[in-house]
């Protein structure tokens, strides 16, 4: 099953793969905003703008 959601920044329709995970970071193909999957619930996915990179982020 795939998911559909709208970009919270530009409202573009986004298709998400069936293995979409909560906390996954994706990029909106229209506006290139980095988004994070807040919730995967049955057939619904909630997206929000991903947090900015912090000073201690990385490997």
């Amino acid at each position, binding site marked *: 099953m795939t998911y559909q959601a709208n970009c919270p920044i530009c409202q573009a329709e986004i298709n998400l793969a069936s293995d979409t*995970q909560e*906390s996954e970071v994706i990029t909106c193909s229209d506006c290139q905003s980095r988004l994070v999957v807040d919730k995967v619930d049955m057939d619904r996915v909630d997206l929000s703008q*991903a947090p900015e990179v912090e000073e201690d*982020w*990385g*490997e």
Partner: protein
Amino acid sequence: MSLTLGLLHSTIRADEKLLLKAAKDRRIEVRLVDIRRQRFDLSYQADFDIALERSVSTSQGFYAASFLESLKISVINSTDVARVCQDKFLTSLTLWQAQVPTPRFALVFSLDQALEFIESIGGFPVVIKPTVGSWGRLMAKINDRQALEAIIEHKQFLGSVYQKSLYFQEYIDKPQRDIRAFVIDHKVIAAIYRRSSHWITNTARGGQASNCPIDKDLATICQKASRAVGGGILAMDVFETSNGYLINEINHTMEFKNSQEPTGVNISGAIIDYCLSFYDQN
């Protein structure tokens, strides 16, 4: 007894998705533990046997791992390994103490001491890096005294507390590439060249990955470095010089998504296999 693996994470990157797939392929149960949604206190009940630390935030991952270790839950990598690898100065010190070849380095807190170090290694250029950080952020190649003065002034006025500890490395003139070696349980399982016309070769900054053959010298220096910092699952940045290899940095929560295809090595599978073997042996 079958393993239930706790995967400690914050944002889920492509790397974590590859790990989930590798665990699924091996029929290993995984508990996804978003550390930002946990309350690490005396009421905490863990529902996994061992943990694989994959937080994108170094400090949050370290605290989460420290908490779990206090409950006698093994974390890969351990906080002993993380403490050294998450700090570039401590990594350099540990490598130097173990006589693993590494670029000359210094940690100073002021301009005068920075100038003394630079003079001691034969002058500019020199590289300044934050002690904590990744993806090539906030690094600078400093070519002269004027640039040095400007960068130190900016760090001292605008930087966070981390930025006020000034970590310097001698500049190594690379052949437009360096090596990223993936080391698990003291053995190099794969390596890539990271090519770039820029002196920063991180793939996060556009460096192009291609397979790097693992020769005896590379295997040996990486094994020695792995033993020095405590082993586990490590990614080592290695410089090629006319006098042999130098270990530059060691990452303890490595990203590998750009390296599986060029090397043909299932790095995510090797990580999960290591977790399984660690659990069986402990």
